[in-house]
């Protein structure tokens, strides 16, 4: 299994190649709800609900479930 090294909020994480960013996040919260009160994480898993939005390599509002990890990718979560 090929492994890929990424960073989630600055922390180094090793995941299998061909994983989605949402899979790499493994259910950890990636944003706070609009009221900034509650943590949210990937929900629909299919690019529909937009709950898994993260910043990937500086580009905000990316759906983690629709993006595959790349070597050296930097992911920022808001929660």
């Amino acid at each position, binding site marked *: 299994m090929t492994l890929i090294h990424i960073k989630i909020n600055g922390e180094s994480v090793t995941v299998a190649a061909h994983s989605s960013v949402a899979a790499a996040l493994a259910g950890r919260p990636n944003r706070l709800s609009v009221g900034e009160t509650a*943590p949210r994480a990937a929900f629909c898993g299919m690019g529909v609900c937009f709950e898994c939005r993260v910043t990937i390599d500086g580009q905000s509002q990316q759906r983690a479930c629709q993006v595959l990890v790349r070597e050296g990718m930097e992911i920022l979560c808001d929660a």
Partner: protein
Amino acid sequence: MRELATELAIVGAGPAGLAAAEIALRHGMPVCLIDDNPAPGGQIWRGGQAGAAMAGHPKLRLLTATRVVAAPAPNCLLLESADGASQLSYHRLLLANGARERLLPFPGWTLPGVTGAGGLQALVKSGLDVRGKKVIIAGSGPLLLATALSLKAAGAQVIQLAEQASLASVSRFALHLWHWPGKLTQALMLGWQLQQVPYAMNTHVRAALGNDRLQAVRLRRGDEEIELACDWLAVGYGLLPNLELARALGCKTHHGVVEVDHVMRTSRRDVFAAGELTGIGGVDKAQLEGRIAGLLIIGEYDRAVALAKRRRRWLRFAAALEQHFSLQPAIAQLASADTVVCRCEDVRFGRLAKCGSWREAKLHTRCGMGPCQGRLCGAACETLFGWQNAGSRPPVFPARLDTLAGNPSTAEVT
């Protein structure tokens, strides 16, 4: 703005889109295949091999991780991907952009650890590690069983399968399966492979419990309630066609599906539809409809008509699915006043209950006005309140301003 042109544009590289593409390419017709996902094969089916086999074809342009944002002019689609925007002009268009899950609110459903049923399957297929995790799968329909099998194969411990339909209803469905021998075999295999997994009918999730993350699930079975500790809860109440693009193109829809004739023509000239868009029936129906559309598009009308005769049995299968897994009234009454219904804008049930229509709810609460554009809460409100949400305004998918302004994406947004 990048300008692209093709003979046949296909939106959706799942079973229907791939089946049509294969026929068109074999005929020598240039095809542009567009999919929001990073790889072809579809969200549920994930038939990656079929897509991979086609990927190098000289007449195929495969645009993955690409969204259709709008249909700005006749025979033209506006696309967006990480590389920026492009405009695709086409002679024929096949809509094969499938379905999403019906995801309905219940207390605790926004907790991390709660996902859709097909949603958790999709996450596992894209690499989520669930080894040794306790999982509960609930909702309705055969997709729950497929999800259970995927989870089990990935090393999860499926501690409970909960189907909201009654035992009588599921049994009637099972008894009809001999009409579709392939499905019967599949069901028997699933039954055999899942024999260790408790499968309860007439059972639904009453609430997901936990503070910042899911810790347990309260299930209601008939009159009794039980609580089970778990790591993941996957809940889905069947599938719904993705109608936004079809509606933006002006294709007629009826009872929540795109209207097509016997050879997959929509009400719009040169626009065809195949797969879950025309009714939820699974992979066999989708592949058959993709082939029918493909044959018609390459001018093989007689062969398309001949093949279309086989469609009837899959339409009967679709009808049987809808009938036997129809929602019990309790499922529409799970939300309490403080349950979030619109996840994007944090709109709770209590505020929505004071509104009289989808339009009023949007105006007064911002329900459906977040990035998912009502894809989830629109269907939820239809189930909860009976509100119709037939409108579709461009863009059909959230897009960058650069894309909408028609400018090449020159600068990174910082």
